[in-house]
Every structure is written in C-alpha cells, then in structure tokens.
C-alpha cells in the first residue's frame, strides 16, 4: 500500500513541472455472476481503481506515464505487483518516450498500447496483447488492450508509412486462466489455474510486427507481418502437462474506405503455425486462413450500426468457423446517455456472446455505467460456449479529472 501511494505521488508530482498535462480518474466497479458457477466465486469484479496520466511535451521528446493503482477484492494475487499480467495493486499502462530522430521517422520506446487492423473487437493482424479477463469482466473497453513493452518505429517515406514494433520478450494475452472465469479444460468446465509454459527469454523469445500502409483514392491499404507466438496457450506439452504458446507467423492485408455513406473494411491473414506445419501434432494448433469483412453506417441521427463477418478456415481439416457480429450504438439526451449492444454469433459453433452497455454522463466529471456479458452455446467446448457459467453484470461509477 505504501509503495502504491509513493508511486501515485511520483506521477502526480510530475505535473508540477512546466508543459505537463495531467489527468486521470477514479473508478469503482462491481461485477457479479447472474448464475452460479461451481468452479468460481459469485463476484467477478470488486475493485477501486485510480488512473493517473502525465504527458510531458518537451521540444525534443514526449514522455508519457500512465498507471492504474488498484484496490482489488477479487484477484488471487492481490498483494503482488505483476506488471506482466496487470494483476495486483499496479497496472502500468504506459511509460514511454517518443522522439523524432529524423524528419521521416518517429520512435517510441517503452511500455505502450499498440493497435492496428480494421476489425471491431475481432483481430486478425493486430497481434498485440489483449486482456480478455478485463473484457469479459465488464471493465471499460480500453482495457481490452493490454500494454506491450516495445520499441516502436514509424518511417514515413513518400510512398507509404511503415510501422515496426519489436517486443524483445513475448507478451502473451491476458487470457482466461481460471482466475475469475471458468473455461473448457478438455473434459469439462473448470476453474483450476491453467498451467502454462510461456516463452520468456529476452531477445530469444521476441516478437516483431510490421505494418506498411498507404491511402489510395480514399481507401487505406495495408500489409502486415507478425513473427512470434500464438497469443493464448493453444498448444499443449503432454510430457510436462503444461499449456504452451507455439510459434506463429502471420502474413496479412487489409483495405478500408468510405462506401455508400458508410465505412467498409476487408482484412485477411494467413496464420502459419510453424511448430506444426504438417498438422501432425494434435497438441499444436493447425495453420489457418482468417478473413474479415465489415460495414458501418449511421442508421439515424446519433444511432450507428455496424456488422462484420469473420471466418477461420483450417485447410488441413477443411474446418470453418464462422462468426457474425453486430454493433448498435445509440446516443441520447445530448449524447450524455450512450446505449450499446455488441453481439458475437457463430452459426458453425452454435454459440455467441452479448455485450449490452449503458453509460450516463451525470456531469462532465461523473459517469455511471452498466455492462453485461452474456455467453451462450450449444456445447461447453466451443469458443464462447465454454464461458456459459460466466454470465455477469457490472456496475461502475467513475470520476474523471
């Protein structure tokens, strides 16, 4: 607790220097299952969070520090600071320095949030870490993105923009591991801690992600490359009994632009599962082709709708997983009330996931929020079906400053 206060004071005191912008919020959030789960507690969230954010705009660089300080009633590892998983009293979101060494390049070094790709809550070429626990627990949507420790370089030659992200040590997703949420354990639903063997050798178990993009006649075209590991433990080592992160390379492309008064996007990727190219090892995921097509349009004033189709095709088994999503966002009362619904539905797995939300800005500073996470599925073993015991609602009050 002392450390927590010291760190908070450190960030806050930065703001007394010149040219520093400081902001933040206090967020109290409580989540509870809407049914019981034999494998987990009833509460899914019970936390008080302070976020402090400082940016120092210097002539030569921009320094960003943003961290969350938590008092957490649900996490198992409540007292231990673990910056990798973000569990514990400190979740460091950003600590980076950005500078422009030459006119045609920017460099950002340190902990940062990285995002690219065209999908809406579906990701093909964005292989930066995600935090599925936060997503399922009804935290703010920004927490779906987990931070990466990276060297990020952007180059701006005349013909395109080139982004290169280098993560010297593999950052996995913050995946569902039995803490807070139960999952399919191979024979049934379980809440036992998922045992994993994570590649964690600095500079050996590294990741690199590249994007090259340019806009042509109003359409943004991009090519992507990723070289690293599957972001969730989809492999299994029968000798050690541990779940593993097999090697993965992804090649992809996307296009996005205005179409008939809306925004259309297309994205594709080839997932080359390098540890099992011949699909002989049943414990390692097969290579896949992934496709995504989406369209967003304003349906009426302050009502926006979007739909996506997503496909995972496994050539070796000729298996297809289809997913459809629909998002509706309605803003009311001078845009102070936002009602939202995001729906995943897979006709092939016969499962889905509903994410309703309501947020009301009581004043410029106070926000009230309610979120729901409802999973359904015919089978317990499918992607969303396995979370059927995790249906929950979360309520939050936030003060921003």
């Amino acid at each position, binding site marked *: 607790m002392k450390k927590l206060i010291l760190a908070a004071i450190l960030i806050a005191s930065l703001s007394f220097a010149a040219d520093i*912008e400081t*902001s933040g919020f206090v967020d109290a959030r409580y989540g509870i299952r809407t049914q019981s789960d034999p494998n987990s507690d009833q509460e899914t969230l019970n936390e008080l969070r302070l976020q402090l954010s400082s940016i120092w705009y210097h002539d030569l660089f921009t320094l960003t520090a943003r961290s969350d300080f938590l008092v957490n009633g649900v996490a198992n590892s409540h007292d231990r600071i673990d910056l990798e998983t973000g569990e514990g009293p400190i979740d460091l979101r950003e600590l980076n320095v950005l500078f422009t060494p030459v006119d045609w390049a920017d460099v950002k070094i340190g902990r940062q949030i990285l995002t690219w790709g065209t999908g809406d809550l579906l990701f093909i070429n964005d292989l930066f870490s995600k935090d599925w626990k936060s997503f399922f627990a009804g935290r703010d949507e920004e927490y779906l993105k987990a931070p990466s420790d990276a060297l990020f370089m952007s180059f701006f030659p005349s013909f395109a923009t080139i982004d290169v992200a280098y993560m010297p040590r593999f950052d996995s997703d913050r995946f569902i591991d039995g803490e807070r949420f139960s999952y399919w354990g191979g024979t049934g639903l379980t809440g036992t801690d998922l045992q994993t063997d994570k590649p964690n050798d600095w500079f050996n178990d590294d990741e690199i992600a590249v994007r090259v993009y340019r806009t042509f006649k109003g359409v943004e075209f991009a090519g992507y490359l990723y070289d690293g590991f599957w972001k969730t433990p989809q492999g299994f080592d029968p000798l050690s009994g541990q779940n593993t992160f097999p090697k993965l390379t992804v090649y992809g492309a996307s296009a996005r632009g*205005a179409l008939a008064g809306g*925004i259309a996007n297309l994205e594709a990727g080839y997932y080359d599962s390098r540890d099992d190219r011949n699909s002989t090892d049943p414990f390692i995921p097969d290579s896949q082709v992934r496709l995504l097509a989406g369209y967003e349009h304003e349906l009426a004033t302050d009502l*926006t709708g979007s739909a996506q189709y997503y496909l995972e095709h496994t050539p070796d088994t000729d298996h297809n997983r289809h997913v459809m999503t629909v998002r509706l966002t309605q803003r009311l009362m*001078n*845009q102070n009330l936002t009602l939202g619904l995001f729906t995943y539905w897979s006709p092939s797995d016969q499962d889905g996931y509903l994410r309703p939300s309501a947020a009301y800005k009581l*004043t*410029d500073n106070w926000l009230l929020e309610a979120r729901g996470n409802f999973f359904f599925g015919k089978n317990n073993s499918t992607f969303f079906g396995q979370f059927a015991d995790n249906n929950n609602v979360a309520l939050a009050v936030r003060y921003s400053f």
Partner: protein
Amino acid sequence: MKKWITAILTLASINTFALTVDEIVEKANQVAYYAGEDGQADVKMVITDAGGGERVREFRILRKNTGEGTQKFYVYFTEPADVARQVFMVWKEVAQGKDDSRWLFLPALNLVKPIAPGDKRTSFVGSDFVYEDVSGRALWEDTHELTGETDTHYIVKNTPKNPDAVDFSEYTVSIDKETFLPVKAEYLDKNGKLYRRVEATKIETVQGFPTVIESKVSDLARGGHTVNTFNNIKYDTGLKEMIFTERFLRRPPREATR
C-alpha cells in the same frame, strides 16, 4: 469613347453596389470559413440544457485551406477530462458527390478510427452546434435568394435542394455589408416554425480578418443553448499540411498542444 466610359462605369457600379446573391453568399462563405491560408483558435464551448445544467468542452482547432474549397481541420480536445487528448480530424470536400473524410483518435487505445461520413446535421460533441456549423455547408446544397437589405445587412434566404437530407425547411442569414461576415442565421422547421438560431455575438478584427470571437446557438424548440468563445486566434501561422495525417493523430504536434 463616351460609350466606353459609360460602360465601364456601369460595370463598376454593378460590382460595387449590386452584388448578385451568389456573389454575396460566396463572399460570406469565404469570410466565415476561409480567412487566411490557415488559422487556429482555442475554443471554449459552454452547453446549457433546458433545465440549466451546464457542460463544458474545450479544444484547440487548427485549420488549413488546401485547395478549391477543400480544407483540413484538426481538433485537439483538452476538456472534459474523459475526452482529453482525443483528436477529431476532418478533410472537408465541397465538390458535389464527394464526402468529407473524418477520423477520431482515441489515445487510451492508441486507435485511429475512421468515422462514417454520415449525417452532418448531428450534434457536435453533444452541443447545439452541428458538424456543419463547424466546417461550413457547401453552397451548392441550397438555392439562395436575396429577400431583403438594410443599411448594414443583406438578408439571404436559403432553401435546401434536397430537403429530406436536413432537419430544416429553410434558413435566413443576415450578412454584414461591410465585412461580409454572416452574423445571424435563423432556421425554420418543416412546419415553417422558427426553431434554431445561430448568432455571432462578438466580433473583432484579428490580423485584418473580421473574426467571430463569441457565437451562440439557441435551440428554440427545446430551450437549450451553446456559447462558443474563441481565444488565442491566429491566422497564417504557416501550418504544415502534414499535421493533418495519421502520424500526427497518434502524436499530437506542438501546434496543437502548446
């Protein structure tokens, strides 16, 4: 020779004393939205709802004229806290059949999100201003008629060519004869009833350009209003066009943060 002189004098007098309505709206449009090669201002927006509740938005707006009527806008929010450091960018188009391009940058996600061209009559950040009030409405979208003239103002009635695309049936603009600045616009709803008023409530000359430094929109149907105050106004600072790109959405330039 006499004929020539008369002809020249007649032409000159037409130009000076009898502008056509198209010339008036064209000049007014230039003065209101295109002053200088570029411009910037710090905007404080106070939104008062019918019940008297107040919300405040603060942002820096950067603008650059980029071609024949096209412009680029960069809006960097500083208040309220939950939208601080968000950036809204517009590439404005005026040619018929071409849509504006709009983007939003969300710093917490480091996400650049294109926004559907959509409805320009949607409220801008929850205020009584609509997107079109901020970047301007293309002249070809209305027919213009000079319906009156006082010693100081032209009165121009504007009727939308496509009435289904907008929430008004017509609007009347008062244009200052000396500066050509539009100082008041009143909107009639589909039943011909006055429901919306936009006013330039304070005007100053900045670097030689007549400039609105306070404006007000009143929602006469529901009873709320929004007042914009403009500070730190500068023209022709030499803004570079490269600021209006994804690079500088992700990394706000000093022109936006200082």
